[in-house]
Structure formats: structure tokens, C-alpha cells
């Protein structure tokens, strides 16, 4: 290990590989890359510095602490850190580690089978420097209690942020996904990862979902009045589906807002769709019978079998973002993306690509035949008024 804090960090057990990467980085304008020979050494370096490096280039197979364990630790200690993977392992294994790293909260901006090329490193540097510089060491986040959630619910602090879904054939705005945010009076906007796990663990998620559904339906009605006809998706959980009066309550809520059930889609994650609870499946069937849309979210990340897909009458399939990002670089990820889209189409479902972030990914999801897409390439989730303004501008641009 060498040097004080550097924006680039190379973790590889082979001094030759480190030196070669270091020389190429030097020629690309980063002369002082820090180096470590395995994961343990890398963690010592990162812990000794205030910020995580702008970019960590990580080998996977190393004696001592390997790249897999290092990435898990890095994700825990510095979520959001930017990494690129370089390994002599098979591409499918590298892709699996890439997915794992993303699920540990890391931003994986590249993955390549060795040898590294100048072009690969240049692309990684462009991507890393184009976003955040060094990732600051996260301050210990405040822990919330159930009481905090209750008070926030009573004070109407849980609000929907909307992310557009775009029709890939026409370019038209097709709908939006309502994502829950907590607008805290002192802490500002709190991301869902900070409070949803607690809400789910304590059952508070059910009341919070009702609030989101109510807000989403109110927005659909309000936008209809302003000439914008949109379908809005709301995420639901199995515990929500276990509510006794769910069918009557959801239906009467739509009726009260004067909106058709078809303008609401209920999104269920794939792992939750794997439930065997007869009552839950029955409620999903009944919701569909009443005309509500049902979407299987994060498709490809859970364990849904063909049987689950056949017994729950989904109307929409959302392919997980990891396949969208991976398909651009990895043939086997592309195969999974294509197969998922084909499966959705053969089952008569509308297929949506999640997490489209750039033109390359957009072109890929178009090529494989997705019906619609959402992601930062089009827009980040926005508060309702910003969303409405965005929708107006988008409509003008499409004419």
C-alpha cells in the first residue's frame, strides 16, 4: 500500500498488474494511484482516509481477503462508492459479482476481463469523474422509531415522488411510478431505504401504503382535470394484500376520486410474488378482476417460477435494472434481458425496462423489444408539481 489519499485506488494482488494499471492511469492524467495487494490492505487504506476514493479498480481473486468480501465491506462502510471490476475470471462470474456489488450499494461503472485496456480505464474515469468526486464518509444516520413513523404519517409527511414511464414506440409519456419519500421538517427529504425496512418490520407499511394509494389516486384525478391522462403505479406489500377489506377499500377509493381502476397499477416485487398465501393470491386475482393493473417488479432478481407468473394475473412485467445495465456489456445478461422480455410478451404483459440511464441502455432495451422504460435517462423521481411541469415539457418536445 502506498501514498496518502489518492482519487484512484487499485486493488490487485499482482504487482505487475498494479503497475500496468498505474502506468495507464498516469498517462490518462492520474499519476498517483494508490495500491493495495488484497482486500484487507485496501480496507486499512480506506479506513485511514476521510473519503472513499473517486474510483476503486478491484481485482476479484486475491489471496487473503478476496475482491468479493472487500466489495461487501466497502458497500457497508461507504455505500455509493464507485468501483470498476477487473478480473481474469469468466465473464459470467464477473457479471455475478457486479450484480452482487450493486446490491451492496456500490456504483459499478465498469467490469472487464483482464487485461485492462486504456479505453476501458478512460471510460471508467469519465464516468467516475462525471458524477460525484470522492464519496464522503457517511455520517451515522439517525435511527428512526415506530413513533417517528406514526407522527410522520399523522403529519402527512409521506409524499409520492413520480418517475415517468416512457412508451418506447411513440416516445409518449405512458405513466408514472409513485415512490414514497419522507419530507422531514428538520432532516429534509429522507430516502426510502432509511425508513421502509422499519415500516415493513413493524407493519406500519400497510397504513403508509394506503396513504400513498390515496395520494396517487388524488393526483390521477387532479391531472385528468388538467388534461393529463396517466396511469400511476404504487408499490404494495404482501402484508397490505392481507388486509381484509382491501378489495372494497381500493375500489371505493378509486370511485371516490372518480378515476377508472385501470389508471392504477399495483406493483409487487418478484420475491413477494413468490408467496404461497392463498388469500393473497385470491386478492390479487380479485383486484385484477376489478380492473386494476398488476405489475411484477424487479423481475429476474427473485425466485418467481413460471407457475407464479401463471397463477397471478399480472398485466405488466418490469425487468430489473441490473439486467438493463448488464446487458450492454455482458452477452449473458443480454440473453436474460431478452428472455425476460420475450416471456413477458408471450404472457401478454406490458414489458418495462427499469433503470435506463443512458442512450446505450435505451438503444438496448428498444432492440430487445421492451414496450416502455423508466430511469434517470428520462427523469429522476420528482415531486408532483415538478412532475406535471416535466410532463408538459415532454409532450411539447415529442410533437
Amino acid at each position, binding site marked *: 500500500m502506498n501514498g496518502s489519499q489518492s482519487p484512484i485506488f487499485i486493488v490487485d494482488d*499482482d504487482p*505487475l498488474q498494479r503497475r500496468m494499471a498505474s502506468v495507464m492511469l498516469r498517462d490518462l492524467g492520474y499519476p498517483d494511484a494508490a495500491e493495495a495487494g488484497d482486500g484487507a490492505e485496501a480496507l486499512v487504506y480506506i479506513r485511514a482516509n476521510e473519503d472513499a476514493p473517486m474510483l476503486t479498480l478491484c481485482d476479484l481473486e486475491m489471496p487473503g481477503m478476496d475482491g468479493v468480501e472487500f466489495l461487501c465491506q466497502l458497500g457497508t462502510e461507504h455505500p455509493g462508492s464507485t468501483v470498476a471490476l477487473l478480473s*481474469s475470471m469468466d465473464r459470467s462470474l464477473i457479471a455475478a459479482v457486479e450484480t452482487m456489488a450493486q446490491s451492496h450499494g456500490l456504483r459499478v461503472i465498469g467490469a472487464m476481463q*483482464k487485461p485492462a485496456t486504456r479505453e476501458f480505464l478512460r471510460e471508467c474515469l469519465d464516468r467516475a469523474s462525471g458524477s460525484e468526486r470522492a464519496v464522503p464518509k457517511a455520517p451515522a444516520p439517525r435511527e428512526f422509531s415506530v413513533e417517528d413513523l406514526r407522527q410522520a404519517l399523522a403529519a402527512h409527511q409521506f409524499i409520492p415522488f413520480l418517475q415517468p414511464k416512457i412508451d418506447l414506440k411513440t416516445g409518449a409519456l405512458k405513466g408514472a411510478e409513485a415512490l414514497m419519500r419522507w419530507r422531514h421538517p428538520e432532516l429534509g427529504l429522507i430516502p426510502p431505504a432509511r425508513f421502509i425496512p422499519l415500516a415493513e418490520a413493524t407493519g406500519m407499511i400497510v397504513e403508509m401504503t394506503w396513504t400513498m394509494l390515496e395520494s396517487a389516486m388524488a393526483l390521477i384525478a387532479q391531472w385528468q382535470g388538467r388534461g393529463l391522462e396517466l396511469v400511476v403505479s404504487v408499490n404494495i406489500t404482501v402484508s397490505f394484500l392481507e388486509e381484509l377489506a382491501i378489495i372494497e377499500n381500493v375500489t371505493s377509493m378509486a370511485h371516490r376520486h372518480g378515476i377508472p381502476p385501470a389508471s392504477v397499477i399495483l406493483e409487487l416485487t418478484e420475491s413477494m410474488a413468490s408467496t404461497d398465501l392463498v388469500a393473497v393470491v385470491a386478492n390479487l386475482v380479485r383486484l385484477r378482476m376489478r380492473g386494476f393493473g398488476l405489475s411484477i417488479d424487479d423481475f429476474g432478481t427473485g425466485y418467481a417460477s413460471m407457475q407464479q407468473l401463471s397463477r397471478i394475473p399480472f398485466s405488466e412485467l418490469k425487468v430489473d435494472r441490473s439486467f438493463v445495465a448488464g446487458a450492454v456489456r455482458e452477452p449473458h445478461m443480454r440473453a436474460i434481458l431478452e428472455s425476460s422480455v420475450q416471456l413477458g410478451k408471450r404472457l401478454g404483459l406490458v414489458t418495462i425496462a427499469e433503470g435506463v440511464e443512458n442512450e446505450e441502455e435505451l438503444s438496448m432495451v428498444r432492440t430487445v423489444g421492451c414496450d416502455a422504460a423508466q430511469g434517470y435517462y428520462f427523469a429522476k423521481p420528482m415531486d408532483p408539481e415538478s412532475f406535471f411541469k416535466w410532463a408538459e415539457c415532454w409532450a411539447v418536445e415529442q410533437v
Partner: protein
Amino acid sequence: MAHSLFDRNALAERMGNDPATQREIIELFLDIQPQKVNELAQAVARDDALHARAIAHSLAGAFRSMAMPKLGDTAKALERAAAGADLDECRTLFLELDELFARVCAEVSDDPDARYHSGMRVEVLQSTI
């Protein structure tokens, strides 16, 4: 004349045309890899497939990075044989790799006295008996 095992142009394309940098990389290669090849020989000679696989993996990466594709492919084949605990195949592939490695060291080294001479061929051959 034997076909070259080292694509000097490909290395220059990746590492740049600075002769000093190329020399530095080659010297680093000659400093590190012979020791690794010897470690591989020891692992193969004592039927330690686990260790042999790890070293062969590392060598495959280094050879490919150095634009030595034939050596890279041989090391990769040895890595796979070791992963499948096919020790006979490991020995056969090691002898092939050892010979290729001696040739490539002679090819890249400026100093004829510094050429790689495997001290482990006998041990590996004996381990087949």
C-alpha cells in the same frame, strides 16, 4: 525460427510507446513471474490442485496482460484442469507452460545470463511416476 510468443506491438499499444516504461514493465515481469512459475511447479509436484489453480489463474492474467496469448491460454487451461482436480493434465500442461515460459523469458530479456531455467521440471516429471 520459432514463432514469437510475445506481441511487443500489442504491449506497446496498451502501455504506450515510451521505451523506459516498456523496459520497466518487462523487468517487473521477469522479477515476479519466474517465482510464480516455480510455485506452480511445486504445487503441481505435490498434487496441490487448489494452490495450483490459484497460481495458474494469476499467471494467466499476467501473461494476457503482457500480450503473451499462448502462455495465457496454457495457464488458463492449467487453471481449469486444476479446478477439475485433473492432476495428470496439470502436469502435462505445466511442462508445456514451463517450456514456453523459458522461451518467452529469453525473448524479452536483454541479459542472456538472466534467462529463466526451470529448476522444477525434474520434480514435476518425477511426480508423474
